[in-house]
């Protein structure tokens, strides 16, 4: 292991390669593009494949195939590009194909897309939200493990700030061997044996037992799988000084780092402010948010959008304390990155005002 100064995007890419990802497909889009560049450089050196897909639609299609053929595979984009991938993500969940999807978001406006699913049907994807480079490696590795364990697409949400900030990270020099292909995946070898494998979002039964697919039975089974996944993943959040907090901040990702600084600043002024930072956005850490909100007179949700995660906070708190939004879509003039008025001072001022008026 050695410490290197790298662009955040490279930290994401290195984390994927370390986790055994040997297939990546992507299409350039800000602020995701550099991840594709780094994967294009890194994967061939470890015998992997990086495809420059002709569109986001084909990127996720290629990953569908690579994952079904047994390789740890990932794709990514920003919210707009992920919009194109939604059908495939929704259906991959029905097919039982797991892979990682990275959203290098512009702001935090894709929270609903990630946690409610921008696709059709009852599917869900586990969503992990690092707040900085130190967490990226761990959460990327977990994402691949979850994708294998639950045979479901798993999302990791970053953003422009994380992608383009140069950071000091410990990077592994040796990549561990990727895990071997799971039993359900395809390599052609069961062909001609009378028991050739089938992987399909329409069902898994071969026609020997009847004619055609039984979609109703398949969807009922998919419901059970999804319930098991929801119950089987432990929701996680990090709390900062919530035990005696009067005002609780809730924030994730990059915005949580600002909130953390504000908590330290306001505590030093004698104010009882705390922060709960969801790390799994789905399943949402309802219990941790509710516990942190107990005893507070106000919960304030700080997010870089028109107000999305606030819905989940309200569902977690269930009226124990009022919930307000410190939201607003604050980007720079390009709409890729964070606007200058996202700052510790600005947030601290907003929270001081809440302390006085609530």
């Amino acid at each position: 292991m050695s410490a290197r100064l790298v662009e955040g995007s490279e930290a994401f890419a290195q984390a994927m390669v370390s986790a055994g990802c040997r297939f990546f497909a992507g299409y350039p889009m800000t602020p995701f593009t550099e991840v594709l560049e780094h994967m294009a450089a890194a994967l061939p050196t470890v015998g992997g494949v990086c495809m420059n897909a002709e569109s986001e639609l084909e990127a996720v299609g290629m990953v569908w195939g690579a994952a079904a053929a047994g390789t740890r595979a990932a794709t990514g984009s920003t919210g707009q590009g992920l919009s194109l991938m939604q059908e495939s993500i929704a259906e991959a969940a029905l097919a039982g194909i797991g892979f990682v999807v990275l959203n290098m978001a512009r702001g935090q406006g894709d929270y609903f897309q990630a946690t409610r699913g921008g696709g059709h049907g009852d599917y869900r994807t586990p969503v992990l939200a690092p707040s900085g480079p130190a967490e990226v490696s761990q959460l990327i590795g977990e994402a691949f493990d979850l994708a294998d364990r639950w045979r479901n697409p798993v999302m990791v949400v970053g953003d422009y700030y994380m992608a383009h900030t140069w950071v000091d990270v410990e990077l592994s020099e040796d990549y561990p061997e990727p895990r071997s292909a799971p039993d359900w995946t395809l390599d052609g070898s069961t062909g001609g044996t009378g028991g050739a494998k089938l992987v399909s979002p329409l069902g898994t039964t071969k026609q020997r037992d009847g004619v055609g697919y039984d979609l109703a039975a398949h969807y009922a089974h998919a419901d059970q799988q999804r319930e098991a996944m929801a119950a089987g993943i432990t929701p996680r959040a990090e709390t900062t000084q919530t035990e005696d907090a009067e005002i609780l901040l809730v924030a994730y990702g990059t915005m949580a780092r600002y909130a953390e600084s504000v908590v330290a600043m306001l505590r030093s002024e004698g104010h009882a402010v705390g922060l709960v930072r969801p790390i799994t956005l789905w399943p949402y850490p309802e219990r941790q948010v509710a516990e942190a909100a107990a005893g507070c007179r106000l919960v304030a949700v700080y997010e870089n959008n028109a107000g999305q995660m606030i819905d989940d906070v309200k569902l977690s708190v269930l009226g124990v304390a009022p919930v307000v939004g410190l939201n607003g879509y604050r980007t720079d003039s390009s709409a890729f990155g964070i606007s200058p008025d996202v700052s510790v001072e600005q947030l601290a001022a907003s929270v001081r005002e809440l302390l006085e008026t609530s």
Partner: protein
Amino acid sequence: MTEDRRPKELFVIPSSEAPTDASRVADFTPDLIDVGEHHLCPGCGEPIAIRAVMDAIALLGLAEKSVAVFGIGCSTAFSNNLDVEVLQALHGRAPSVATGVSRVRPGLAVFTIQGDGDMANEGLQEVLHCAARGENIVCIMLNNGVFGETGGHLTVTTTIGQRTKNTIEGRDAAKHGHPMRIAELLAQIDGVGYVARGAVNDAGNVARTKRMMVEAFTAQQQGLGLSFVEVLTMCPTGWFVPTDEAPNYLAETIAGTHAVGVLRSALPSSPSD
């Protein structure tokens, strides 16, 4: 209705038990088809085309290294009864899915089976880019000139004058645009190794189509780039014709626009036509 050719005295040969003093030259279902029964219409050409593919795979000994990637359409009803590994993709998306499989498992005989609506409408971009990249997969388009599964609607291969559910007076270029000849389009792309168009409307064409499949998979195994085989299939339901008239309808109407033949081949030996 077919004219009754039986002589006045009906001499029917019993045909329910196999003879013992003969050798079998054709069996009900090929080895690589598990279950022959399917829900496709009477007279549908798709099972005949899929049989040609399975026969080619068996002939070349590729069963244990094949992965079939199916699109969505009528042929989906024939996707869960094959004895080769099958990966079901979404409408139009089979070529990108096949690319993913092929890139992580080079050497496998990865192929797609898609209708014309699936490949040429929903997914035209996918197959074109696979051709440009020279992906070592076989893309197979079952072309009946309609979206069959949804009831028989216009696709980009529907011929001028052809009646479909949403061009009920007949396709009119001014209203509905022109058809595209997909095999010709692909034959122009550097990166293809084999491009052909067959048909299954009579025994001669079925035999020729099977030879095209053998050539396509041979080219794929030799790493010559994308192999593409278009197969004209009967769709009496979509064409509003009786089942016994569909083979002629195919020959006159469909093949009039989409001509049968080998369009491009990088194989060392001469093409099957």
